[in-house]
């Protein structure tokens, strides 16, 4: 797309402006502030896209007012555009909101192709190939965008906007933050202020649960009420039936009472007949009763009762007594057979025998224990290898053993004594020798003095002879010396001859004495060894050393040996005791059936048991015989009493009318017949007749009873009629009590049914009340709570899904975007001849550059090693790369620069402007608006004529006159 011409009829501060834009020219619009330079850029955009509604822009209505010409003139503009070989004229009337697009080549109105129903037109998008937002982000470089300090961050932001929203205001990063923020703090919360979405859900869920529980409780109450109401009818039927049954039971009671009355009347009539019969019988018995005294029969009867069965019992007891005596005798005989002569032992003898037998048994046990112990000790000694040695020593005589006890110590003592005496002998000898040697020395010294004296005397003599040459004193001195020495020698010699003579003699005596004692000691030692040798041979030891060693070993085991000896002694003592027991037992042997010798322990214990059984049996026999004697005495007493009673009975029978002389049994038979009549008479008189008379009643009473019965019958039939029942409907009852009990049970059942019905009705009322009370409020509250929960859940799900999908979309788009920009930048940088291979973008779209040698500058390197001008060139390259990525790189879209290098110094400004003219302009037209006239004049002045002609300077203030200054249309 290429803009050939712009006619502004009225747009903000621009009026009737006509701008031609020849191909390959940079339009440099130089004018003062507020002259409408930025409006010129906006007018081009408005011509392409209409008045802006892009996000972040001023709202439409207000923007329209802002862009409206300030003089109130026409509000519109016309663009002439060449796109894909077709020239269009786009005319917009912003007042009327109309658009006209004409194909100038064909003179054809093509407006409909660019208009959408109730929406913005698509002129800019179709002709430029970019949305307005994207156009603004790429081809339109606003003021300060290329500022050195901020262009990187601004570029990142703009690239992000392009990648995320196609050049809109939003970015994916900000969107993610908004989502996270909403997740952390629930917007428009309904469960409390400042809660997260999760908390909102949790609280809402709790409310829902609470209200659902209440709803379920109410629902259950209603279900229960329904169940109860269904049971009401059956309960009422049951109560009705129970009541009918109770009424019938009550009638059953009346029926039973009727039958009872009937029975009573019958009984009265029967009693009257019986009275008559009894009175007749009484008159028949009266004569007999009158002839007898009542007391005689009573005494006779009392005696008979007293005697009762006692005679038979007496006879039986007597038989049992005799039988028992025979049994006791038989048992005694049996015992004699069993125990033999032992039975005849007296008590004292049996005690002695028992004592001996216990002793025998005890001694046998002790003997066994002693022998066992002895055996154990021998076994232990044998295991230790001492048994044989002990036997050997046991074979020695006591004197030998006594000798051996001290032999070792004696031997040692003698040996030590011998040594000591030898030492003393030596010492005495040594001392004597020392004394003798000292004497010899002293003698030799004295002799030496004497010899010296002789020599000195000789010398003195010589000196004396040589008096002339030797002074006299010297001669005299020498002579005196020789004399004194000679005297001393003589004295010493004399003393040496007597030196310690007594001591030497004493030592010689002691030596002889010690030597003699040593000889005696050696003899004793020799004797001792000889005897040891003899004993060793006698005991069977190989040597005295072996004997000594064994003896020492046995002495170490002396305690064991002593135990052994004690055990042997104990065993021997027991044996001796048993020998005495055997002698003492001899007299009892035949009586206890023992064979010769001492009985074994087992036999002794058996004999003891026998004696014990025998004694027990004899004690029992004694007890039984005593009991039999007492029984015999009691039977004798009983017999005497019975005889007295029988005599009294016989006398009583006579008094009751029996003839004297009859046997007792005959007399009693005689009396018995009259006694029966007498008793019957009094039975009727005293008992049967009064009872019968009591039952019998008057005829009035009978009539009353009959009347009562008729009344009850009438009541019964009335009741049956009332219930619609007949007599057969009455419950079968056997008696009045049964009937009353049945009636009571039926009444209880009725009361139970009535209580259940009342209870059910009360429960039903309660359940219905529980089921519906405040139900509407609760249901609405539940609806509310569920709505809140659903709202929060949906919100959370939607947020999570949005975050997820946004993240996925961002990853893919940014990756593609980065690759696309890098590819596009490679071509641009190559064309521009810059020493870089391509732009590089990281994941956050920060830009850096790849050098021709393949090295990629780090961000710090990019920021600090590249000049600001280079980075601004790269910024432009990035923007143009975006257009290339979106497929509009070769559409010759114009580059609109609104005072782009305001913060650059003069040198950098010139470089950048040269770059634009030399490198960028050949690719696309450039519109640059600025207020820095002087700076641009310098720029133009330093251009070569060839380059200079590519720059068209347009002052806006000249307005319409610019039409004339514009270059010719190509």
């Amino acid at each position, binding site marked *: 797309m290429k803009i050939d011409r712009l006619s502004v009829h009225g747009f903000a501060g621009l009026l009737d402006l006509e701008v031609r834009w020849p191909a390959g020219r940079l339009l440099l619009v130089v004018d003062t502030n507020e002259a409408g330079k930025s409006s010129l850029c906006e007018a081009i955009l408005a011509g392409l896209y209409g008045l802006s509604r892009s996000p972040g822009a001023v709202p439409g209505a207000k923007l329209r007012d802002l862009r409206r010409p300030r003089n109130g003139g026409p509000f519109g503009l016309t663009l002439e555009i060449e796109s894909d070989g077709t020239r269009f004229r786009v005319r917009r009337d912003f007042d009327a909101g109309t658009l006209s697009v004409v194909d100038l080549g064909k003179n054809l109105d093509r407006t409909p192709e660019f208009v959408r129903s109730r929406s913005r037109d698509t002129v800019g998008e179709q002709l430029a190939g970019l949305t307005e937002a994207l156009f603004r982000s790429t081809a339109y470089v606003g003021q300060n965008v290329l500022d050195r300090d901020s262009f990187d961050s601004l570029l990142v932001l703009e690239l992000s906007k392009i990648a995320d929203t196609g050049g809109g205001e939003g970015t994916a990063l900000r969107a993610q933050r908004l989502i996270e923020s909403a997740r952390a703090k629930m917007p428009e919360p309904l469960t409390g202020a400042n809660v997260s979405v999760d908390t909102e859900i949790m609280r809402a869920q709790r409310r829902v649960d609470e209200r659902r529980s209440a709803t379920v409780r109410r629902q259950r109450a209603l279900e229960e009420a329904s169940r109860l109401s269904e049971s009401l*009818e059956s309960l009422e039927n049951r109560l009705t039936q129970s009541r009918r049954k109770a009424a019938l039971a009550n009638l059953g009671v009346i029926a039973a009472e009727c039958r009872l009355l009937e029975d009573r009347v019958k009984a009265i009539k029967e009693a009257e007949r019986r009275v008559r019969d009894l009175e007749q019988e009484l008159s028949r018995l009266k004569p007999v009763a009158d002839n007898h005294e009542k007391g005689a029969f009573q005494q006779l009867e009392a005696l008979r009762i007293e005697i009762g069965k006692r005679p038979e019992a007496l006879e039986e007891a007597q038989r049992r007594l005799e039988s028992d005596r025979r049994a006791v005798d038989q048992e005694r005989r049996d015992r004699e057979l069993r125990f033999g002569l032992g039975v005849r032992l007296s008590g004292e003898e049996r005690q002695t025998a028992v004592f001996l037998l216990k002793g025998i048994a005890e001694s046998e046990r002790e003997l066994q224990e002693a022998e066992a112990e002895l055996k154990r000790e021998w076994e232990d000694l044998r295991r230790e290898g001492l048994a044989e040695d002990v036997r050997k020593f046991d074979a020695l005589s006591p004197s030998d053993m006594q000798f051996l006890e001290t032999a070792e110590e004696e031997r040692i003592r003698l040996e030590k004594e011998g040594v000591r005496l030898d030492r003393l002998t030596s010492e005495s000898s040594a001392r004597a020798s020392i004394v003798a040697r000292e004497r010899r020395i002293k003698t030799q010294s004295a002799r030496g003095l004497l010899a010296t004296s002789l020599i000195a005397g000789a010398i003195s003599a010589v000196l004396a002879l040589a008096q002339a040459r030797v002074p006299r004193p010297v001669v005299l001195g020498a002579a005196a010396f020789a004399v004194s020495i000679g005297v001393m020698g003589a004295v010493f010699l004399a003393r040496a001859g007597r030196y310690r003579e007594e001591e030497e003699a004493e030592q010689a005596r002691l030596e002889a004495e010690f030597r003699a004692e040593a000889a005696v000691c050696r003899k004793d030692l020799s004797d001792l060894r000889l005897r040891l040798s003899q004993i060793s041979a006698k005991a069977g030891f190989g040597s005295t050393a072996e004997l000594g060693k064994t003896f020492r070993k046995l002495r170490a085991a002396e305690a064991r040996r002593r135990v052994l000896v004690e055990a042997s002694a104990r065993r021997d003592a027991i044996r001796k005791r048993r020998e005495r027991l055997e002698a003492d037992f001899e007299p009892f042997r035949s009586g206890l059936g023992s064979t010769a010798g001492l009985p074994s322990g087992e036999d002794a214990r058996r004999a003891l048991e026998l004696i014990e059984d025998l004694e027990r049996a004899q004690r029992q026999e004694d007890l039984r015989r005593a009991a039999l004697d007492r029984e015999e005495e009691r039977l004798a007493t009983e017999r005497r009493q019975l005889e007295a009673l029988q005599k009294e009975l016989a006398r009583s029978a006579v008094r009751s009318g029996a003839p004297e002389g009859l046997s007792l049994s005959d007399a009693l038979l005689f009396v018995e017949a009259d006694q029966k009549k007498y008793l019957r008479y009094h039975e009727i008189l005293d008992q049967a007749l009064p009872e019968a008379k009591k039952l019998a009643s008057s005829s009035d009473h009978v009539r009353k009873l009959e009347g009562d019965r008729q009344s009850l019958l009438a009541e019964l039939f009335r009741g049956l009629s009332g219930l619609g029942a007949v007599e057969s409907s009455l419950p079968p009852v056997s008696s009045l009590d049964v009937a009353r009990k049945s009636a009571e049970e039926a009444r209880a059942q009725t009361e139970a049914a009535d209580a259940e019905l009342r209870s059910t009705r009360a429960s039903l009322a309660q359940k219905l009340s529980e089921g519906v009370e405040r139900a509407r409020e609760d249901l*609405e509250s539940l609806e509310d709570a569920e709505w809140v929960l659903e*709202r929060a859940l949906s919100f959370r799900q939607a947020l999570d899904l949005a975050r997820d999908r946004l993240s996925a979309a961002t990853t893919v788009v940014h990756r593609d975007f980065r690759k696309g920009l890098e590819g596009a930048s490679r071509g641009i940088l190559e064309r521009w001849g810059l020493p870089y291979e391509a732009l590089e973008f990281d994941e956050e779209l920060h830009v850096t550059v790849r050098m021709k040698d393949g090295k990629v500058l780090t961000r710090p390197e990019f920021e600090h090693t590249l000049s600001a001008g280079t980075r601004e060139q790269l910024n432009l390259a990035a923007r143009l790369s975006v257009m290339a990525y979106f497929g509009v790189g070769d559409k010759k879209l114009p580059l609109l620069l609104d005072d782009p290098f305001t913060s650059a110094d003069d040198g950098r400004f010139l470089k950048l402007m040269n770059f634009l003219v030399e490198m960028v302009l050949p690719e696309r037209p450039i519109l640059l608006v600025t207020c820095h006239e002087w700076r641009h004049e310098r720029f133009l002045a330093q251009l070569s004529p060839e380059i200079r002609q590519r720059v068209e300077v347009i002052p806006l203030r000249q307005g319409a006159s610019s039409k004339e200054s514009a270059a010719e249309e190509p």
Partner: protein
Amino acid sequence: MPQRIRLLQSSDWFCGAPSGARGLGLSPELAAVRRSEIDGVAQRIVSLARQEKVDALLLPGNLWQAAAATPDLLLNLMGCLESLAPTPVLIAPGDAEGRGQGNYYNPRVLDVLGLPDWPPNVTVFRERAWTARTFEALPGVQFFGRALWPGDEGLAELDVKDGQNGVRVALACQPSGGSTALTSLARGVSWLALGGNPQPALIVDGERQAGAVSGSASGRSFAETGPRSVWLVTLEGARVSEVRRVASENRVLHDLVIRLVPGDPDLTGTILTSLESAGVKPLDIVRVTVEVPPTSPLLPPVTFSRLADKASSLVVIPRLEPGPWPEPDPRNVEGRFTADLLVRLRQANEPAARDLLQATLFLGRSALAGRSLSPSFGALE
């Protein structure tokens, strides 16, 4: 046989039921008013019956909500119906009152609660089988009715003997979730009054107007939009001579849908226009659903002060416009995100899944546009 009788049919009052305030977006004050309006339907219907001088009032079920109707409510309802005496009132119990024995139709239940029995002029068809009832004041007219009992899934046809003369009017409540062939059910009767469905409908058997489904007497959700009404039926002999619908309440629920035009600067004006064209009155309750394009799903601001006097309750919610949707530019995140969700929306069949995807689209695009996010996804009240 009477020459002419007039009948008034109404049902599905749901007295005591929740007002549906949350779903309708009602304020607490309006919700309270709405509850009293729902409970006052008996009074309105009886007044209407008295005003129209009807010969009988037919009430085929669902007069109250069993789970929430209190004894006091029932007492008021009985009083209303009794005040119509001696005009007979015929009731065929339905689902909502509770099937079986545990409902207020059972005299034993009334007795337990200390309530009086149903008034003498009220006939309750409590049996499961069709039962006939005649009135001295209406000679030659037989009323048939039946109640719904546990296990009923449909209505058995009325067994009418051939050759029987006279006027036969039948009333019953359709079981919820059940299905009944209404036309065949209406055969043999002069008028079939059915309840159990919130939407009113006329039952036509060939050329004959054979009966009607009452429809709910009060709107409790946006599924019950439009004027609520009763049926006023005139029978000439056994033939229906006139059938009229008479409004049963003044307040109407409206569920309107408009389409958002991108760039439209005045959504409020568009809503105003739609309210006017829908005939919304100040008492009415309205929901306006604004269908938005996926690439511009954000509702512009709405000036509610301009709409305040147009309806007693108004809620505006956005909804994604039905397809086909334009393909967004996949070279930017916004476009790719939108394209991704539109693909998923096309594949989603479940309404819940579609709602979630729609909400995700709204939220994601709102976030990209830097707008604050709302759990109501742009709904306005």
